[in-house]
């Protein structure tokens, strides 16, 4: 130690010069509080964007977020109607809730001062309690890029368009295991999809089972309320995907493909039976007859059989599946797939009488009287006609008939240039089948492409395969030659007129725009209707039918107590999954009615 350390004494004294400097103290609260542009403060929820998926609540390890009902938000399909309420006695400002919010409605703001003597104040609802200046204060948000939700779907492998048209081989190849796990792991398990599924399948659970590498459990969960899952996995209209939480910023989870993956892991009916291994109740002696082995009839048959009923299905055709067999082309739904599923049903005791047309081969009244309950899933068989001149010409045919023949194993001469009229799935199916038969196909549709009711995947698939689509074309006349053979289609161009009532725009013919397209066949695909001639007239009076459909209550019960109906002939949505849902609901009602 130095004897006298002058420097050590004087150096610190230089610190006194700070006296002359202005203090850098922030004079809060005289000046407003500061927060950076990325500050993680209190929450703000854009209530209109929020879908109440509860993902924020789930990721919160502190259980700080409750989902509660709020007046004014009733909930609809794709929106649970619940909104997050934050307990700031738990929140740790980690903002994981923001990072996982699939819609981006939940954000953090620059506000952070929350001081109160009453601890109960800390339970508050973002978006309501800070409505005034919450939104402009948003500082920490998560956009599509930073979000922890994975918004891009694992792409589905498909055959190329030019390969596809060579045969009726299945166009979509399905996920392999790795792809399925990856896709399944995108799901946030909110379960909002279940509401828009007519059958309310347990979607989050089976996707979760796939994600956890337990495909057998997934299959078991799927079979809980859908006996034709493989069919659904291939051709379902998948309303679930329309409301998927992921659609708000990206691609919906490929629920359909995941279902398909899970069901395809069971290679044949025996394996399905082994995996699902359903509990079959003891026979209870009640006899149920089902008319039509379409999706609704098969569903009703399967679940009734499981519940111990004696079930007989009467099917007019040689194969089960109804429209799904005869209406859907084989490149979408191979026959073996359906046979596998039907085979499984038969193996647990569902009896199907094929080639038995009710009303012809067997009397409806007889069935009705001999059964404890009757379920009708007869569907729509009779196609609508176009209602234009020349429709009866040779070469003018209906899509349903055409598909029926092709799917039944037959063939039909259509020539090499085909016009398909209509924009639904049936039209596309017919077009793509015709394409596979070597024809040059043009789809003529009254409205725009985006108005087509068919699945966008189908439309794209058709385009890939070289199907031409002519939107805004109104067919006027089918032109034939002197032999009565179709030679062309006269049509007019249409312009879109906005609907005064706010509906979708309507096509209006442009005067003088008529053209003639040279074709060898015209396939009409503008809809079908039911054929209820099998019901005797005296009974028909007792059954209420409106607009071509049986009127049923929520139990699928017609006005005759013993008679239930489902499927296309009873509901307006007219797709396979609704039919399955009808069947399932009818089963519950029948069980309730008979097993009191």
């Amino acid at each position, binding site marked *: 130690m130095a004897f006298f350390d002058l420097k050590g004494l004087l150096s610190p004294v230089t610190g006194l010069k700070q006296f002359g400097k202005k203090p850098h103290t922030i004079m809060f609260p005289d000046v407003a509080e500061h927060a950076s542009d990325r500050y993680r403060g209190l929450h703000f929820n854009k209530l209109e964007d929020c879908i109440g998926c509860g993902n924020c609540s789930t990721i919160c390890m502190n259980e700080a977020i409750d989902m509660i009902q709020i007046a004014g938000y009733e909930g609809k399909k794709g929106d649970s109607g619940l909104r997050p309420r934050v307990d700031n006695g738990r929140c740790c400002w980690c903002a994981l809730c923001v990072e996982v919010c699939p819609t981006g409605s939940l954000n953090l703001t620059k506000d952070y001062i929350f001081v109160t003597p009453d601890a109960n104040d800390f339970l508050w609802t973002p978006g309501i309690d800070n409505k005034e200046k919450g939104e402009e204060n948003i500082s920490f948000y998560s956009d599509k890029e930073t979000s922890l939700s994975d918004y891009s779907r694992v792409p589905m492998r498909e055959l190329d368009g030019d390969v596809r048209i060579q045969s009726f081989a299945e166009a979509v190849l399905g996920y392999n295991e790795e792809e399925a796990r990856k896709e399944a792991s995108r799901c946030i398990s909110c379960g909002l999809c279940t509401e828009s599924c007519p059958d309310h399948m347990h979607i989050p659970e089976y996707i979760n089972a796939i994600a*956890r590498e337990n495909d057998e459990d997934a299959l078991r969960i799927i079979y809980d309320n859908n006996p034709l899952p493989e069919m659904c996995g291939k051709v379902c209209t998948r309303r679930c995907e329309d409301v998927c939480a992921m659609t708000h910023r990206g691609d919906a989870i490929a629920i359909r493909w995941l279902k398909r993956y899970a069901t395809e892991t069971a290679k044949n009916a025996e394996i399905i039976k082994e995996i699902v291994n359903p509990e079959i109740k003891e026979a209870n002696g009640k006899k149920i007859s089902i008319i039509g082995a379409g999706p609704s009839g098969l569903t009703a048959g399967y679940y009734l059989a499981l519940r111990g009923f004696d079930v007989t299905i009467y099917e007019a055709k040689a194969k089960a599946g109804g429209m799904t067999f005869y209406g859907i082309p084989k490149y979408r739904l191979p026959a073996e797939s359906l046979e596998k599923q039907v085979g499984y049903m038969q193996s647990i005791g569902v009896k199907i009488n094929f080639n038995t047309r009710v009303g012809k081969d067997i009397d409806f009244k007889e069935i009705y009287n001999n059964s404890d309950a009757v379920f009708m899933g007869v569907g729509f068989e009779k196609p609508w006609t176009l209602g234009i001149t020349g429709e009866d010409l040779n070469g003018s045919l209906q899509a349903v008939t055409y598909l029926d023949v092709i799917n039944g194993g037959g063939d039909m001469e259509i020539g090499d240039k085909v016009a398909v009229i209509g924009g639904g799935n049936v039209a596309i199916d017919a077009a793509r089948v015709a394409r596979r038969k070597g024809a040059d196909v043009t789809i003529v549709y009254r409205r725009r492409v985006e108005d087509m009711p068919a699945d966008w995947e189908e439309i794209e698939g058709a385009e890939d395969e070289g199907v031409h689509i002519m939107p805004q074309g109104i067919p006027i006349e089918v032109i034939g030659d002197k032999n009565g053979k179709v030679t062309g289609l006269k049509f007019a161009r249409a312009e879109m007129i906005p609907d005064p009532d706010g509906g979708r725009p309507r096509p209006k013919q442009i005067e003088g725009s008529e053209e003639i397209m040279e074709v060898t066949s015209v396939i009409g695909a503008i809809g079908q209707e039911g054929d209820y001639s099998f019901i005797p007239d005296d009974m028909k009076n007792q059954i209420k039918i409106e607009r071509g459909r049986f009127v049923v209550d929520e139990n699928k019960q017609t006005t005759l107590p013993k008679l239930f109906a489902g499927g296309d002939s009873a509901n307006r949505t007219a797709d396979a999954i609704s039919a399955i849902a009808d069947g399932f609901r009818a089963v519950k009602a029948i069980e309730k009615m008979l097993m009191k």
Partner: protein
Amino acid sequence: MREKTTTLYLGPQHPGITGNMMVKLQVQGDTVVKAETHVGYLHRGFEKLMERRNWLQSFTIVCRICVPEPDPNEENYSRAVEEIEGREVPERAKYIRVMTLELARIATYLLWYGGQSGSAGLYTMGQWSVGDRNYILDLFEDLTGGRIYHMYIWPGGVRRDLPKGFKDKALRTMDYIEKRLDDYDKLLFENSIFQKRAKGVGIIDKKKAVEWGVVGPPLRGCGIKSDVRIDDPYEVYDKLDFEVPAMEGGDVWTRALIRRFEIRQSINLVRQALDKMPGGEYYNKIPNPHKWTIPAGDAFVKTESARGEFGYYMVSDGGNKPRRVHVKGPAYVHGVSLLENLLEGENIADVSFIMNSLGTCPPEIER
């Protein structure tokens, strides 16, 4: 002749204790004859809680293990997960991580300036340095959205890219802090009274340092060149230019000098990291956190924090939650048995002085 021994409880409520712990001292006059550390006042059972939280949720909890310097925890956690899972981290993220860690080091050293001088009665130093530390925290706020708990470094990269204008602001702040460090030197390091207090107090010799597993600045203060950043380089430390100081002495004064050198070096490292930072991705996205599983395996990762080596031992059983995360902070070796040993024979006045110089931080002892 035996003097009467008094028992003195230093803490848990005591202004001189770093954090919430207790040192039970047996004193004779002003001299400590026996010291016993009592910890557990901050025990939260993090490791148990992590068993209940999934891989992402656990990430938010680790930063709470060390309050003054949370980033090495995040870094360790992320790196352990990445090692088990084999997840790649983009180059840019690595640079951002290094910058964050060095900023955290600067902030911690500034807090240390306050603690060390405060325990020596020089409160002005603390007012300056802790006040100036806010400028670093402002940077953190801009970068991460949080002042203290950043929750920024996460498995796969960092949470957000640098905000606009961050580089300029960071460089300006670095210049400011560097200028202020000269003031600090004059007030603290050239202060004869502080020198008198610090020299020859709390001496750890080389042999003892190895035997007791001393880490960080105290180890380098014993003349051993040891720094995880050099020994087992992580992120991009091997691409940056810096040197590890080592000085003989082993007393509080040497440790202070080491820190004084390192804070300047950290400023330099921040500049380097900002300068060399490449463009591109900053984040290798993790899958949906609800369904994120990590293959079975274990990893031990180390990070050099401001107070020494932070180690994480992590075990995964293949599920969506960690099987075990065991945290070892520098205070774990410094704050319990070494402190007890070191305090014996020292003056009561030097107890908190020595604790500060070792960087004792109870939350990481008991977690």
